[in-house]
């Protein structure tokens, strides 16, 4: 992450430098300081928006935990998740991961982020080598990122507003493509697990 971030920042700053040179056609009408300010502002707004929903779902998950709901579902949950995460026994972690996946599939954007983040935190607590991402973390993150969405609502919406005859035509192909992408991620992840074992 250190390298990626540094490269992205450097590329951004350099390009700003180039586009402000006299004689070059500046395509970006945004000034550097504007860009800095708006990005930081947006980030904080985003967190504030997320904080509410994060509090909500953490609260409800705590109810589910306290009332014993998670415990009563844990056997089923373990069955579903044991293929991807055979080494995880903690029922809260498994449940959070499953909720993250489901929320993703059902297109519950920010709620999905919340479940996933809580699951990552749980995985971090039991990670034996804190500096290195565990196999489960890599698997969870990559599967979640390639996760398909049943109905890509925003895109369907854009298409119907743009006057498409059948805005929902893209659902089936995107489901198949998403599925292929998820399968690829799982397979590549399983292969890489053995190769990139932490020292």
């Amino acid at each position, binding site marked *: 992450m250190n390298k990626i971030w540094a490269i992205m920042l450097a590329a951004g700053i350099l390009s700003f430098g180039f586009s402000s040179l006299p004689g070059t056609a500046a395509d970006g009408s945004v000034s550097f300081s504007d860009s800095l300010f708006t990005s930081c502002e947006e980030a904080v707004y985003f967190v504030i928006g997320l904080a509410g929903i994060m509090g909500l779902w953490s609260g409800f998950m705590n109810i589910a935990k306290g009332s014993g709901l998670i415990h009563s579902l844990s056997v089923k949950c373990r069955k579903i998740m044991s293929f991807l995460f055979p080494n995880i026994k903690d029922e809260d972690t498994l449940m959070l991961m499953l909720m993250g996946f489901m929320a993703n599939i059902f297109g519950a954007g920010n709620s999905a982020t919340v479940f996933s983040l809580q699951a990552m935190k749980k995985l971090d607590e039991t990670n034996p080598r804190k500096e290195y991402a565990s196999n489960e973390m890599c698997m969870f993150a990559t599967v*979640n990122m390639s996760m398909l969405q049943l109905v890509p609502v925003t895109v369907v919406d854009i298409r119907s507003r743009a006057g498409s005859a059948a805005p929902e035509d893209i659902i089936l192909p995107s489901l198949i493509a998403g599925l292929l992408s998820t399968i690829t991620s799982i397979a590549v992840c399983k292969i890489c697990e053995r190769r990139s074992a932490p020292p």
Partner: protein
Amino acid sequence: MSHILSMISSAFLPALLAIILIYGFVKKAPVYDLFIEGCREGLSSAANITPYIIAIFLAITLMTDSGALSALEKLVAPVFNILGLPQELLSFMIMRPVSGSGTLVLVEQLAENFGADSFVCRCASTMMGSSETLLYAIAVYFGVTSVKHLRHTVAVGIAGYIIGIWASFLLCKVM
């Protein structure tokens, strides 16, 4: 079929909340106290991810606003030609792993310029529905952990993304 799917999707959250609440009632759990306790925990993790969010938003905005992404497009354009991917989708595919809102704007533009039912727009919409803002997700997910080395996460993410994009393109061609 798509109606059923979207009905399930929109019923998911309310159903989940109702189930948790009713189960809590039946088991006579102190639902309010439990909610407050969990909520407090959630808020503190929201505060914890703020630095990571600022860092990644900063990097992404600088990349997109400065034109660094368009420079990258010129670099990879020849590769696209070889793979047979349409040039119109170039900026879309580069933007997709980086910024969700940025890509939505691009889809809107494609729909406007080429028509909502054009191949290009269908292709972009399919890709949109089958992929995720990779870079941002990695930063946020690992932001809550103490991990310094991501190991194979980025590579696997990119592999999944490329297959998703590629499959979308091929599927749109045949369907």
